[in-house]
């Protein structure tokens, strides 16, 4: 609970001068080049304004000069922590325009890598959140497991960060031999580690003190600001595009069993396995956002397991990527997918040539970061990293 929103509150009688502070773009805790202009009265933050644009690379404009297949690497660099999901979003929207169905095996392969990358992204979010709160160790624990995922991806596509693996029409190559066993083994290793994460952070008393009741984002405000993903679900809004999205996207998950991670009647779908929600936590606070991500890791593990089986059972190939000179029928297409950070939408207008006439990306982090000034108003200075960290933003996606 921020101090100046406290109903008992009090004017601090000491007349201190308000101070303008630039938090970022070079600051240890702002997750990239976000610049927050804070107006503080002592430790109390009276206002916070996020300034963005330090990482703008004209990706959308470049997209108007490249074939869809060529633009895939640019999507890698949007949410570079979840490139697979970015690739997937772009590939799906192009396929939607072309009405191009991917074979069954390809479908499961896409689910497989997308969910693995979701795990990786959430692990980074968790680790860096620990850093934001002054706890260094969980960061390395998280990165240790993430490295294993990156190893898996490296085996798949040769890249560790910018995969460009899922392309319109299919993937760049099928899985190598033995990959499925490696992946299954990784999941087995990850399983017990998740408990460690919960012990280190989720149920840590200081962590709860720092996050519970801090930066409360009411569900209504979250909706009004267009927040999506774990930020939205952390506020108790039951929305997950993997279930609620367009059929073109949700058909990807046909036959998969998963429950949307959102608090209903005081409980999360899987919270019986993990630390209970602390009494101090308010729905929509930093703790809940964090917890939703932690549970989504487990959820994604489950989906990956299912995908492994389905992929192994499916016959045929994984689809053929479209050619560079593939003519795009005139028209437009828009599709939103559930990326780890929220709803990632790609928009495409074509004029019949092989190169899109207009390309646009709808960033989830852009909407998520916009609540910063609401959440930070009246909190303490130390809460600012806690709040910004809990939103889990990636500037590459915001600035594009």
């Amino acid at each position, binding site marked *: 609970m921020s101090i*100046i*929103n406290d109903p008992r*509150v*009090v*004017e*601090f*009688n*000491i007349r*201190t*001068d*308000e101070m303008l502070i630039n938090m970022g773009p070079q600051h240890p805790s702002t997750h990239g080049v976000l610049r927050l*202009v804070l*107006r503080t009265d002592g430790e109390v933050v*009276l*206002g*916070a*304004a996020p300034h963005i644009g330090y990482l703008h690379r004209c990706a959308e404009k470049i997209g108007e000069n490249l074939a869809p297949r060529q633009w895939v690497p640019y999507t890698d660099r949007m949410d570079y922590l979840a490139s697979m999901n970015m690739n997937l979003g772009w590939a799906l929207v192009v396929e939607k325009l072309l009405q191009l169905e991917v074979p069954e095996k390809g479908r499961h392969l896409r689910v497989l890598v997308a969910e693995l990358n979701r795990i990786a992204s959430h692990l980074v979010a968790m680790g860096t959140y620990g850093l934001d709160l002054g706890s260094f160790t969980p960061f390395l624990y998280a990165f240790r497991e993430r490295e294993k995922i990156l190893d898996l991806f490296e085996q798949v596509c040769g890249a560790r960060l910018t995969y460009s693996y899922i392309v319109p029409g299919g993937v760049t190559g099928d899985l190598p031999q033995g990959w499925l066993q490696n992946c299954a083994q990784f999941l087995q290793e990850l399983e017990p580690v998740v408990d460690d994460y919960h012990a280190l952070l989720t149920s840590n008393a200081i962590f709860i003190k720092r996050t519970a009741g801090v930066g409360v984002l009411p569900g209504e405000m979250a909706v009004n600001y267009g927040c999506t993903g774990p930020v939205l679900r952390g506020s108790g809004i039951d929305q997950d595009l993997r279930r609620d999205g367009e059929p073109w996207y949700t058909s990807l998950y046909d036959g998969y069993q998963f429950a949307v991670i959102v608090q209903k009647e005081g409980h999360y779908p899987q919270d019986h396995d993990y630390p209970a929600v602390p009494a101090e936590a308010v729905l929509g606070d930093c703790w809940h956002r964090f917890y939703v991500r932690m549970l989504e890791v487990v959820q994604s593990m489950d989906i990956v397991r299912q995908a492994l089986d389905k992929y192994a059972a499916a016959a045929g190939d994984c689809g053929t990527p479209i050619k560079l000179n593939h003519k795009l029928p005139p028209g437009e297409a828009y599709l939103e997918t559930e990326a780890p950070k929220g709803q990632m939408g790609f928009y495409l207008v074509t004029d019949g040539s092989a190169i899109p006439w207009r390309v646009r990306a709808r960033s989830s982090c852009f909407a998520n970061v916009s609540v910063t*000034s609401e959440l930070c*108003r*009246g909190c303490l200075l130390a809460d600012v990293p806690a709040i910004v960290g809990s939103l889990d933003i990636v500037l590459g996606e915001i600035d594009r």
Partner: protein
Amino acid sequence: MTIWAATDWYAFFFLLFALLACGFAAAVLFTSNIVRMAFYLTLSLGATAGLFFLAGAEFVGVMQLMIYVGGTLVLLVFGVMLTARAPFLSLRPRSGEWIVSLIAGGTLLFLLIASAFGVRNWRTASDSGPLPLAEAQTATAVGAGLTGVRVDRLNRDAAGHALSQLPHTDSGYLLPFVIVSVHLLVVLVGAAYLARAKVRRRSATESTASVEG
């Protein structure tokens, strides 16, 4: 070697600490930067603590370090930070005031120094020989004095007459000690009250407009 032999270490340290104390006191007087003033004051008070050690008042010296330097000055610096508008604030007095002050102060200093050396008893050294340990280590005696037993008076009486002659009403510094304790408590409460946070009158949202600017 002769230099070493001739050195009066007591005088040396006395001079060292005295010069530090007086010098930094003067620095406090002549600097106009409030934070530096606080810094110099720290050194001056620390040197005074050294003088106390030299004079055999260990407990007072440590107390000086603890309360004055550690507590009071930090408090002062805190106040400086809270009240300084520009980073390094200085409010300079008019030079006429300086002149008047220096004249008055100089006269006073002259008078005080004159009287310091004016009394024969004060300017002649004691020749009572080595001190008994009990009188050199005073921390316990001070503690006992604060809790109601004047050990030094007991000792003095012990040389001559029966100890029971000590008046039963003598409670040392117990009463002032208690009074000061209560006083300190009251003062702390009062200070906290004076500088407390009060009920809000303006809303928090009112003053958030200028972040963009």
